[in-house]
Every structure is written in C-alpha cells, then in structure tokens.
C-alpha cells in the first residue's frame, strides 16, 4: 500500500486557490482546525467552502479573506452566536451563500459520490430556497407521484476531515461517536481527501477493529498526525470545545485591530502546531478539555 503520511504544509499544497473545499464541521464540533489554520497561513484565496453547519473555522476563513462562497445548511457557533465575520461578508456581498436544507446538501453530495446527475428530496417544497438556486429544480415524478426537488450533484475539489486514528496509508478510523454525514459522504464525493488524525498507528491496530474503519486508504491523498487537531472545536470522546477561545474570538470581532491581534496570536504567529498548542494554554489546558471541563 502507498504511504500517504505527510506534513500539514505539504498536505495544504493539495488545496489550490479557487477550490471547492468540503470541511467536516458541526457548529462547535469536529472541524479539522489545524488544516484550516495552515490554509490561512498559506493565504489561499477565493475558496468555496462546503459544510453542514460551519462554525469558527468559517469565521476565521472569512476574516482572513480566504473564501468567497459557501454551500451548506447553516453557519453558527451555537452558544457563541453568529459567525460575525462570515455574516457581514455575506451582507456585503463578499461571500455568496448557497443555502440548502439538510436533505438537499446530502442529496447533492450523495449524487456527487455516486456519479449521478442529481438526487431528489421532498424537503424544501413550498419554501423560497428553490427558485433562487440554479442547483435545485422541481421535477415531476416519472412514476406519477407528487413532484420532488432535484438537487444537482456536488463534487468538491477536496475534502478535509479529522479522525481519531489512521495508519500511514490513510485508512481512517473513528472512535464511537456521532458520525456526522461529513464523514459518511463528503470525502466520497470529493476529488481529493486530506485527513488529519489524532494519532497515526500501525495497521495492525486498525485490524483489531475493522468495523471502526470508515474510509479506505485508497480514497485518501494525504494523512497528517495532529494531536488536538480539532481544537478549539470538540472532538468526542477525546476532548470538549474550548469555550474561552471561542469567547475571545467573539470579543475580538468588533474591532479590526483585535481581530488582527487574535489571528496573529493563534493563526499566523505560532510556527507549528506545537507552538499553537502552547499559545492556547499548553498541556494543562488540553488536560482540562479532555475532561470536558472548559465548555
């Protein structure tokens, strides 16, 4: 089997300016944040993001000027409120949002994964979401039932996911946890897949529990070991979200200077992931998050 193990900097070179990037993320959960920070440091531009519910990752990408379009269900940091930079960029017309219902996004990605032109859903009928979106159209049921909504296939250029463990060939395992659809379908729809993982292990470790393997290595282009790689989002069951860092970001949002200082401290400044972890509180802070105490 091919060896896919690499570094964050090398893996990020698989993402080009203008790419459509599918990002694992559910509000405050499970985003591949180390890879997101690397893309910001490398100053990627005009990215299109795809998320179920985008959180702080989207707000950082928006604040750093890395993205100009988004396809997904919602953008929210839940208890930490709206993603203000993302929101204002949409209001100013700097980011174009394609807003889809959950079944519509799953249909678009499912069609992309299976090389179908579209998949239908019964969601959204009667709403204003259909007419404004060229990727959606009402379709007569060829078998005589009520009409459905056809959702055009979506094939992201690259999918970014974060997992609990993988081997150096890119075979991916998750611990028992919520498997959001961004794990089940996003990487299968995308042309390239970049995996960050809490731990790279010997393949024999995966063989002990093959039922935990959710993605085969042949689909994966790069795998990078990044412990605490989802911080400041949570990664169940290993660690909770970092409420303090979310709140610090929210507090900075009102002032350009504060935003620049925040990004310098936590995104541009630290030379590598280890330096980032030191900047956000080091081993002591991570231990508290592992006890889910800081949320």
């Amino acid at each position, binding site marked *: 089997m091919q060896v896919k193990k690499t570094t964050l900097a090398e893996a990020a070179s698989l993402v080009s300016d203008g790419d459509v990037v599918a990002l694992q993320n559910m509000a405050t959960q499970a985003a591949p944040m180390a890879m997101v920070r690397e893309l910001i440091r490398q100053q990627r531009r005009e990215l299109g993001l795809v998320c179920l519910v985008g959180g702080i990752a989207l707000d950082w990408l928006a604040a750093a000027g890395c993205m100009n379009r988004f396809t997904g269900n919602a953008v*929210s940091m839940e208890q930490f409120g709206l993603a203000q930079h993302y929101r204002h960029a949409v*209001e100013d017309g700097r980011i174009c949002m394609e807003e889809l219902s959950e079944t519509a996004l799953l249909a678009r990605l499912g069609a992309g994964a299976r090389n179908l032109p579209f998949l239908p859903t019964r*969601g959204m009928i009667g709403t204003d*979401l259909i007419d404004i979106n060229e990727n959606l159209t009402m379709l007569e049921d060829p078998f005589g039932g009520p009409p459905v909504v056809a959702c055009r296939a979506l094939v992201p250029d690259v999918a970014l996911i974060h997992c609990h463990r993988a081997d150096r060939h890119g075979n991916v395992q998750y611990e028992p946890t919520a498997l959001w659809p961004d794990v089940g379908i996003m990487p299968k729809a995308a042309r390239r897949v970049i995996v960050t993982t809490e731990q790279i292990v010997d393949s024999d470790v995966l063989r002990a529990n093959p039922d935990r393997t959710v993605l085969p290595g042949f689909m994966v282009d790069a795998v990078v070991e990044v412990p605490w790689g989802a911080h400041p989002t*949570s990664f169940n069951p290993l660690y909770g979200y970092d409420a303090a860092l979310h709140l610090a970001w929210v507090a900075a949002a009102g002032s350009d200077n504060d935003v620049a200082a925040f990004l310098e401290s936590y995104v541009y400044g630290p030379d590598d992931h280890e330096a980032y972890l030191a900047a956000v509180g080091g081993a002591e802070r991570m231990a508290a998050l592992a006890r889910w105490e800081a949320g």
Partner: protein
Amino acid sequence: MGTPAYLDSPPAGDWTVDELMIAVLASCFSDGDQACNGMASFLPVAAFQLAKLTHAPDLVWLAGAVGLEPRPGPIPASTLEAPLWRDALMYVEQYGDFWTLALNGRWLQKFCVGAAQLDRFGNANNSVIGGDFHAPKVRLPGTAGLADMGSLDKRLYYWNPNHNPRSLVAKVDFVSCAGYLGGGDERERLGLSGGPELVVTNLCVLDFEPDSKHMRLRSVHPDVTLEQVLEATGFEPVLPPGDVPTTPEPTAEQVRLIREVIDPHGMRHREFRRR
C-alpha cells in the same frame, strides 16, 4: 402505577414563564411519539425530559438528532454537543439513519421549531432579513433542517421566548420553513400534509384557524393582558369567541422537576433576551 405525582400537584405559585412554556410544549408530546432537537434548543429539550418524567414515559428522544434515549445529566450549555447524548442506546448517523427516519413519515412526526421570524400563516424564516437574498440586511444562521421538516408532513410546534412585532410578523421576509404558505388550502395543494400546530411564546399560546390557517390566539399567560399580546404581535391574530382563556400554570411538581432535575444550571434562561 397510581396517579402520576404531577397530576395531583397543585399549581406552582412561584413559577416563571420559561417553566410555563416548557410545560405547554411537554403537553404536546405523548407516549409513542419520537422527538428530536437541534442546536440551542433548551426549552424543547427540557420539555421532552419533563414529558418523559411525567405523562409520557415512553416518549422516545433522539438527543441532538444523534443519541437515542440518552441518560442526560443537567442540561449542558450546548444541545448539540456530546454531553447531551451521553449513555445513548445508539448513535444515529445523519446521512444513513436520521434523515431516512425523518423522511419516511412514520417516525418523528412532531418537530419543535425555533426561528427568528414567524408569520401569520406559520411560515418561518431563519435565512435573511431585509434586502436581497444575496445582499441581505441581516444574514441569519440558515435553515438547516427546518426547510426539510416544514415540507415533510410533520406537525410543527413553534417556540418563541421573545414575542415582539419583529419576531411575529404579517409576512416573513423569506420562507425558509414552509407553514401554511399563503393560507387556506395552499399547503395542501402542494401535496404537503401536516403543518404548524401550535405557537408557544413568552406571552401566549396560539394555534391556527382550521379553514383560513391564520394564526389564532388560544390562551394568554397569567399576568399578561390581551392588549399586551396584540401590541407585541405584528398582525391581528384571530381571537377566540368570548373571553380569551388563561394558559394553565405549571404544577408545583413540574416546576420542581425542571429546577432540580432537568435544568438545575438554568440553561433555559439563555433563550430569553435580557431586558
């Protein structure tokens, strides 16, 4: 078995409106129903747990639309994160499991909806306020699962802890969750069954007039006047004939369960805008 304690329990006396809203929402869910919740949904989560602890022990709860029948501790700061679904019987995967169950129609027939705007025909908006969709005055979080639930023959239960003329409007700026659309039989003509059933706010309870599908005042909470409700509503709701009924107070036992067992950290108060 015997009579459940809450039925024998007198009115609480010192209840607050969050507890009353939870008790009203709880009364909408019965044994045999399946309920699920999304983000920042403290009142529905408390209501499902209250129903399970009182009149509906066989109500099935999919916490965060992920964890089947968890054994939750006190309601945590997030209604989507793992602490809410601890000790679940099953993790329901959204792509393979959750939306299959929800789309099927046999399951998850009731859904609680919270949204920034709700109009007189029960259409909801969590997308944009003012301006053009692509250059809105205010970009809201987005529809997420609401645009599905509104069109999937579900019975919808709205909760709104901040009843004012901007949240209860004559017509939503954008329909991101289908209610009765333009009213009358418009929803039916699109082939959609189900629809909005009830609206529970911090001032009153509303339902929908069966023919026009226009929102109708059902009861006003104790210590709230009809004038206050009308002033806070961006349209004229249909009024019931005669005196407007008063919403029943929660019982002492319901209030005790909410305060001591379900939500001792008071997360439910986060839904109410500070005055």
